[in-house]
């Protein structure tokens, strides 16, 4: 307990940073759930592909430590573009291949989960076997730096050196911490505005509220669903960049645990609710850190899940309740 009080600032800042990443991934779950009432189990792989795109783009352009401010901004911007494009693409692909055929056949929801699990396996294994797969096309030597040690961690070339900006309670809050927290929250606000202001956003809300009525009103459901996956994917791509800046490497199976955490965050905040995802992610990130400080790091994940159960007991629809439809600006 004393430890928690003494290091409250450090635990809070780092918890916020990882929580912000959870939030951004959680958005994808929440979005798809809100519109399709479906747990997009493969969303974790969307994140993973984004993280690889970000790493590779830095490798391609030769990002290195100690670049000038302008260079660093350029590199990070490229990372965002690459990761968001890749994640968005993969998300739309998942929708197209794994979900739309089922929707057309009116399959029961459970089977969609199986399809999603299948898609998840396929995506992560493809990444984990990229050396072999590149080898089929004779590309493994050309792509050597990108396919080496397919099953291993792949580091992001370090482009930002963390530097203390200011300190609270003896903890140096670094530039990376600030960038991750502020950036992620800014993304969420932008998304919130998009959903409440834009025509597409209204379409999403309409489908979430009442698919049939929305169809009657001329909303193209398939298009809305595609946009939903795309937006969720793009956010996961952004999350991947923030994650890389904070953690520093990725792996073909990195999505699984993060996905479980992010899904927990989505449910914690109230699945289907955008602001719930934000709040859920941050609460989860903080709870993990405080919990680790109180009962030991080895119980970190246990703390997260116990918190979830406790909150669901008292607020059965999550902290902020569900419904994408009702999310107001």
């Amino acid at each position, binding site marked *: 307990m004393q*430890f928690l009080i*003494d*290091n409250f600032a*450090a*635990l809070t800042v*780092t*918890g916020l*940073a*990882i929580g912000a990443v959870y939030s951004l991934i959680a958005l994808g779950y929440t979005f798809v759930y809100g519109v399709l009432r479906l747990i997009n189990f493969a969303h974790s792989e969307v994140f993973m592909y984004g993280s690889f795109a970000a790493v590779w783009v830095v490798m391609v352009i030769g990002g290195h*430590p100690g670049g000038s401010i302008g260079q660093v901004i350029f590199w990070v911007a490229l990372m965002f573009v690459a990761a968001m494009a890749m994640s968005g693409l993969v998300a739309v692909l998942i929708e197209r291949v794994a979900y739309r055929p089922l929707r057309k056949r009116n399959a029961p929801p459970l089977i969609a989960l199986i399809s999603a699990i299948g898609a998840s396996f396929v995506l992560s294994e493809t990444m984990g076997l990229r050396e072999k797969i590149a080898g089929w096309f004779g590309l493994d030597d050309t792509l*050597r730096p990108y396919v*080496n*040690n397919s*099953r*291993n*961690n*792949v*580091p992001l*070339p*370090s482009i930002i050196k*963390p530097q*203390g900006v200011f300190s609270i309670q003896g*903890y*140096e809050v*670094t530039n*990376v911490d600030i960038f991750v927290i502020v950036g992620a929250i800014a993304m969420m606000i932008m998304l919130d505005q998009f959903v409440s202001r834009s025509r597409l956003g209204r379409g999403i809300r309409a489908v979430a509220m009442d698919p049939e009525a929305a169809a009657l009103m001329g909303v193209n459901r398939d298009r809305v669903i595609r946009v939903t996956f795309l937006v969720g994917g793009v956010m996961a791509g952004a999350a991947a960049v923030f994650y890389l800046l*904070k*953690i*520093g*490497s990725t*792996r073909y*199976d*990195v999505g699984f*645990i*993060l996905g479980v955490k992010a899904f927990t965050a989505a449910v914690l905040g109230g699945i289907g609710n955008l602001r719930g995802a934000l709040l859920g992610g941050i609460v989860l990130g903080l709870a*993990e*850190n405080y919990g*680790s*400080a109180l009962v*030991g*790091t*080895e119980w*970190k*994940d246990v703390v997260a899940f116990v918190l979830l159960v406790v909150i669901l007991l008292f607020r059965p629809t999550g902290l902020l309740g569900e419904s994408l439809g009702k999310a107001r600006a």
Partner: protein
Amino acid sequence: MRSTLKLAVPFAVAALALGACGTKGGDTTPAAGGSGGAKVCDQKIGMFGALTGPNANLGIYIQNGVNLALDDYNAKHADCKVALANYDSQGDPTQAPALAKSAIDDKKVVGIVGPAFSGESKAAYPLFNEASMVAITPSATNPALADNGWKVFFRALGNDATQGPAAAKYIKDTVKSTKPFVIDDASEYGKGLADIVRKDLGTSVVGNDTVQVKQTDFSATVTKVTASGADAVFYGGYSPEAALLIKQLRDAGFKGTFVVADGVKDQSYIDNAKAAAEGTIITCPCVPPDVAPEFQKAYKAKFKEDPNTYSGEGYDAATILLDGIGEGKDRASMLDYVKNFDKKGVTKQLKFDAKGESADVKVFAYKVEDGKIVSVGEIK
């Protein structure tokens, strides 16, 4: 009733067919050939470990070493090659027993390199033991494995009980740490090792923490370390987590020495931790690679990367078995051959004591300097 007959016919036919086809075996002399006779070809050695799945890294490093040894052998014995039989357990103790049984049932398999992990070892060794199949593990370091009385158990590397005290000694005497912090990854290997280090360091340990394999965010642990004012951190675990941990420690301003063990001794640790890896001390019960530069070179030529964790041990374990095959040993006579083996390998002098442990294990300290793992001498 007629339909009943129709159905019954196939069964009857099947029964007749079985009855007519005869029997084999059942007499007193075993079918498999005895030792010393004509040279038996197309024999196999087994590679038992995770080759696919989430823990495949280590298994593949070992398999690479084994393959290299096989290449060497087959180049010299082109007329009578030895094949590799893979038993891919995925590191899963659930799958291990059936695979072990399958290896035992394949009469051509003379010996096994593996199992790679301690968990699957516990599941598979009882079967190997009952079938008198030699299994040389190149990587399972749990000391208790040798205490089960398995006569076929051999370990091609030092166990945690030799490495742990050496690591503690290094932290005390060479790093001269007064405030060490000990972290483990709750795995059988990492925790076992860290507990030995904790015991040996005694009261000077300023803090302990346990993380989990596959964890990526270590912020709570980092806070604990920095808050404790530790001047050295010992981490018991594998390289993926070690790389992330030291990176996050350095990012948070940790200035002390990072000490790890053989589970981290591979290039991917340096690739991932980059600058943060500099100065890391790695203990390892393995002879420095400059002892066997040819192995280093051959490995790099074949697999386009440097030898990784336990590749050398895999090579050595396979070499022992292959040498035995070269001398005409079969499964039954292999046990004595391995027991009395005494040759220089790429990692150490290959010789086993009565319990099957590597005799004469020396623990060396290595240091990461300019992105390379260099030896800084034996820990005595």
